[in-house]
């Protein structure tokens, strides 16, 4: 299970250029990690690619934090 979190964290760190320890459960991509709205779209695209899932636009809008992303991806994989 932690595998998903690690892979998501790696994507976030690479894409947003932030320190790994900043990417905590409740870290908001926009408020805490300095993402702009286009970055969040690109993160979702990267998640889709990494995990081979489709994240529809309305679902993508609910993914605000690192924890949201991990939770969504785990559920999508089941």
């Amino acid at each position: 299970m932690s595998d998903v979190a690690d892979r998501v964290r790696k994507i976030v760190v690479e894409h947003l250029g932030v320190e790994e320890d900043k990417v905590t459960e409740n870290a908001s991509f926009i408020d805490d990690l300095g993402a702009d709205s286009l970055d969040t779209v690109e993160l979702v695209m990267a998640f889709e690619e990494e995990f081979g899932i489709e994240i529809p636009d309305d679902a993508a809008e609910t993914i605000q934090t690192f924890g949201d992303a991990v939770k969504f991806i785990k559920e999508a994989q089941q």
Partner: protein
Amino acid sequence: MFDLTGKSALVTGASGGIGGAIAEALHGAGATVGLSGTRTGPLEELAGKLGDRAHVLPCNLSDAEAVEALPRQAADAMGGLDILVNNAGITRDQIFMRMSDEDWASVIEVNLTSTMRLCKGVIRPMMKARWGRIVNISSIVGATGNPGQANYAAAKAGMVGMSKSIAYEVATRGITVNCIAPGFIETAMTDKLNDEQKGGILGQIPMNRMGSPDEIAAATLYLASPEAGYVTGTVLHVNGGMAMF
């Protein structure tokens, strides 16, 4: 300069005079081209003339589902999609007081809404590639207005506002979005004008001649090229001086 080797370009309205010239120019610069349009015959003919690196991708731009599917079809056929040229357009001229909702809606749908849908479809792969060129073919009429063309002028002006907004949003990703606004260009459409009409038009053009499709194609090639990487959100007017901005 203006080398497009290894790039893939989708051109709508490639069965028409301007679209065909644009496809030919991009192809001549080394790009693989996807020729889209409603009439398959002229597209096949153009593809045959161009030879390698030309793909025929018929699409009815008033069919929303077909439009949404087009970018993916084009990317699959060409192995990528780096350049989009929205050139297709229709007219349903009528004086404004007699213009029906249908005349209005069909022109907005094909000229503006389909452009929006195609832009949306290509931005995802362009963002991933960190490179992209969108060239929307607007019209002088979008800037000056024209009697009998309230629908067409609205669509073409709308294209400019939309292009500038998208240009803002994707500027940091290496994607540029620009418009070209042709004036009067020698095509099948303007061939239908009689001498008196032509004379009237020429009188308004400082260069005293119509433009050629190749002159629009050259402007498109520039905006599609790596060299135009710092040009975004602009409208390039190609009109012989007919209107100066």
